[in-house]
């Protein structure tokens, strides 16, 4: 799957972004971590779904990398890289997948439905598009409270863009003129559905104008471009320009989830330029430009894998939640719980 240097040409000409290596490190670790998750899943050690970001680590890492304390990040299902870049501890990922009671979701929710709102990272609900307006609300509130300089970033797929919630959320962001960046990754499949059954416009970035957004496109397999375009969008939002829509092009290089063999992905599409593996392209660039040598990469892999292993091992040693000890109360105002006796 590794592509020739020509296909990566645009990258090779420019001096690397200052965060290039940092981004690579996170992408690299994400890949290692996700492979680990996949193998745990295959071994029957993870209950429920496992959703990987393989193929879109470059876009995702760029989504997390330019955010600061006080910013809001609402990642979706393929954003392990972005989450790590934003500062989510690896162990919390492992805890959520493995159902540790010590994780941020304490076994109540699983896999990608995790977050830590206090740290600025929202926990997605499954309904695609629903988080867009929630980010708008966070930003609106920050402005009301007199905070300054913050932005919000959320991600969506080309499928999720077709939900009513995404539309309403994108529009209300523009009406409120909150500093929002929405990064839409067109990875050419929504589960098994190809783009021609998802939308009929030439390019999703054409939606930007209709909402009063500034739009930009990016090759999601090219880390340098991702860093450049997404950092610019973040900067523009921070500077008070209208909301930003970035549309990245990639191919999903895994199944929708690890239960899915993705046999519906056509051979033709796998030959498209957007089908390149961003991680491999980045690695190749690093080697070609001698930013790190092969040995350095080996060593990096070992370090990163050790961190992953440690996170997984920690989570595995932690206790699972216990039904009889669980606090079955969905409201924070305990005295307003409805007749707990009704539920046995």
């Amino acid at each position: 799957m590794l592509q020739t240097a020509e296909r990566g040409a645009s990258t090779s000409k420019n001096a690397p972004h200052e965060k290039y290596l940092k981004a690579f490190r996170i992408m690299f670790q994400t890949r290692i971590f996700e492979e680990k998750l996949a193998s745990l899943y295959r071994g029957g050690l993870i209950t429920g779904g496992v959703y990987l970001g393989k193929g879109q680590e470059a876009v995702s890492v760029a989504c997390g990398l330019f955010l600061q304390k006080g910013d809001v990040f609402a990642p979706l299902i393929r954003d392990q890289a972005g989450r790590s870049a934003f500062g989510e501890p690896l162990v919390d990922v492992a805890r959520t997948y493995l159902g540790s009671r010590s994780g941020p979701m304490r076994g109540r929710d699983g896999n990608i439905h995790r977050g830590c709102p206090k740290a600025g990272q929202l926990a997605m609900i499954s309904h695609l598009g629903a988080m867009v307006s929630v980010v708008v609300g966070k930003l609106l509130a920050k402005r009301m409270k007199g905070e300054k300089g913050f932005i919000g970033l959320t991600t969506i797929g080309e499928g999720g863009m077709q939900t009513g919630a995404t539309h309403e959320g994108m529009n209300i962001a523009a009406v409120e003129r909150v500093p929002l960046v929405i990064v839409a990754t067109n990875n050419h499949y929504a589960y098994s559905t190809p783009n021609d059954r998802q939308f009929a416009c030439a390019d999703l970035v054409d939606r930007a104008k209709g909402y009063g957004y500034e739009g930009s496109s990016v090759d999601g397999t090219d880390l340098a471009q991702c860093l450049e375009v997404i950092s610019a969008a973040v900067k523009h939002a921070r500077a008070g320009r209208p909301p930003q829509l970035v549309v990245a092009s990639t191919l999903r290089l895994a199944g929708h989830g690890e239960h899915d063999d993705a046999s519906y992905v056509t051979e033709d599409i796998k030959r498209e330029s957007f089908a390149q593996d961003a991680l491999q392209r980045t690695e190749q660039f690093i080697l070609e430009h001698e930013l790190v040598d092969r040995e350095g990469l080996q060593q990096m892999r070992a370090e990163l894998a050790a961190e992953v292993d440690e996170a997984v091992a920690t989570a595995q040693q932690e206790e699972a939640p216990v039904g009889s000890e669980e606090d079955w109360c969905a409201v924070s105002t305990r005295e307003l719980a409805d007749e707990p006796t009704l539920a046995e």
Partner: protein
Amino acid sequence: MSVTYLEAIREAQAKLLRDDDRVFIYGQDIAGKFGGAFKATKGLAEQFPGRVLNTPISEDAMVGTAIGAAMEGMRPIVEMQFADFSSVALNQILNNAGTQYWRTQTPCPITVRLPSGGTKGSGPFHSQSMEGIYSHYPGLVVLTPATVEDAYTMLIDAVAIDDPVIYCEHKYLYYHLKADALPTEKLPIGKARVVRPGRDLSIVTNSAMVHEALAVAQQFRAEGIELEVVDLRSVKPLDTATVLASVARTGRLLCVGEAFPWGGVTAEVIARVATEGFHLLDAAPARINAKDTPIPYHPNLWSEHRPNAKTIAAKVRQVLAE
């Protein structure tokens, strides 16, 4: 000076905006001089600049935005133009607001105001009572104030609660109900109220139907029959204890609701009394709801579709005869 139910809602919001910087109001047509389809925010935008905001026609995003703001420490009040339009915000309410605290331990103190219930000529899409749907899902507090006093104090309390609150205000009561002044006392959220003590039968009801029940009770008094009327006030949590105590006194139960007949508040109340207070009942409990069709436009049809004093009275007689 007298205060209507609607004015009580406006005054409660004025007080909330005055006393608490975290409060803002978000909804369609609520700002400017206009002050909302029902004028529940009349004057507030001018009095509290930047804190009463018009939104696009985007109910899902209105609630989503409120959720985000609430998680960030604010106390948003969302006005739906009609309860019926909250159907397109239901996902945000049930699945995002309702699960937030349990999933992330982050409180989500939004208050969603639903102008609810039937009025003459309003038809299928401007008349609905949706408390049953919102109560079914976990994580929400669902209130149905039936008096001017409750409209005021329960809205103030709703905004203070750290959880999402669905505040169902009845449009028929907006102008029809008047009190002498704003209340100085209150019953806490979660408590039902015996609005009329009785001896022979308990009518358990909520919202506008409380007043139909009171009218029926008044009628029966002439015959020496004393009906007790219990106003649930909060349908989730539901104050089973007060309901059971009433049934213990009267031995007979009639539940009256304006919503559709399958499920909803009347089914829940009867299920609780039957399961937890079976031996208190001297006769089969009964219920009366709206009919199982969309809510009709024409007043002739509408007045038959909802429970009314005549149909309630007939049901009372039936239960008393047992």
